């Protein structure tokens, strides 16, 4: 089946270019957030009380549940507003980066316009719902 060619994207600042840039910058932001988590954990006695796997879980998502099963004696310092903000930032960058990537992959193999538009809507909806659930989990744990 022949499909209609897509129109060429416009030059300059437009949504696809901004998302291309966002993908790169959010990757760097996630690296920075992870490094913040690792350094803080090491300052809070992770070297004596945590395994490398636990440290990595914490650095991907600084949630007190990720410390509950380690030898850390007191997890009060691992809770609180600072870590919730870091966690929500991580969720925002990871969610937007990941679902935009998912959409990119889907669109590479789908050439029907209506299906592409439908998927854009679905992925956007998925992003909003998963972000809401994730923020709820972060704020209640």
């Amino acid at each position, binding site marked *: 089946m*022949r*499909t209609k*060619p*897509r*129109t*060429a994207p416009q030059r300059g600042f437009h949504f696809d270019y901004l998302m291309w840039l966002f993908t*790169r910058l959010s*990757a*760097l932001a996630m*690296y920075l957030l992870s490094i913040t988590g690792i350094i803080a954990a090491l300052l809070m006695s992770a070297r004596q009380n945590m395994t*490398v*796997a636990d440290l990595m879980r914490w650095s*991907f998502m600084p949630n007190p*549940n990720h410390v509950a099963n380690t030898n850390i004696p007191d997890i009060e310092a691992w809770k609180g507003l600072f870590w919730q903000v870091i966690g929500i930032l991580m969720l925002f960058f*990871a*969610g937007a980066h*990941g*679902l935009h*990537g*998912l959409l990119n*992959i889907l669109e*590479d*193999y789908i*050439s029907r316009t209506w299906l592409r538009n439908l998927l854009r809507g679905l992925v956007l909806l998925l992003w909003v719902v*998963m972000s809401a*659930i*994730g923020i*709820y*989990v972060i704020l*209640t*744990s």
Partner: protein
Amino acid sequence: MGLKRNVGLMEALRYQGKGPMLTYILHRIGGLGIVLFVALHILAGFLSNQAWGTSVGIYINTIYEHWLFQIFIFFCALFHAINGLRIVILDLWPKLIEYQREGIWLEWFVFIPIYGIALFVIIRAGLGG
């Protein structure tokens, strides 16, 4: 040219692009794996705290706590992170694109030892040692 393509998934996988193509396809697989894992993990974290969903949450937990899934997901996360850093550096400093093959070599030099050690630890724990 890219806008007129009509390439199926299997045809795309058969394309013989050597090293750069391999990193490209692994980057995509890794990204999809991470999306799958993070979505499951958020859902499980949410459900385990609800009175009506605890058992479903714990069931989803057992899926990704399995050591075979961990081998897969750690490959995805580590490869995507390291290859992503290479892409970011090459894209934000375009002059370095001249060295992209060396970049890929460097990337495997970083990836293989870290993943190898993790693989050893995961399999040893998985087999109960």
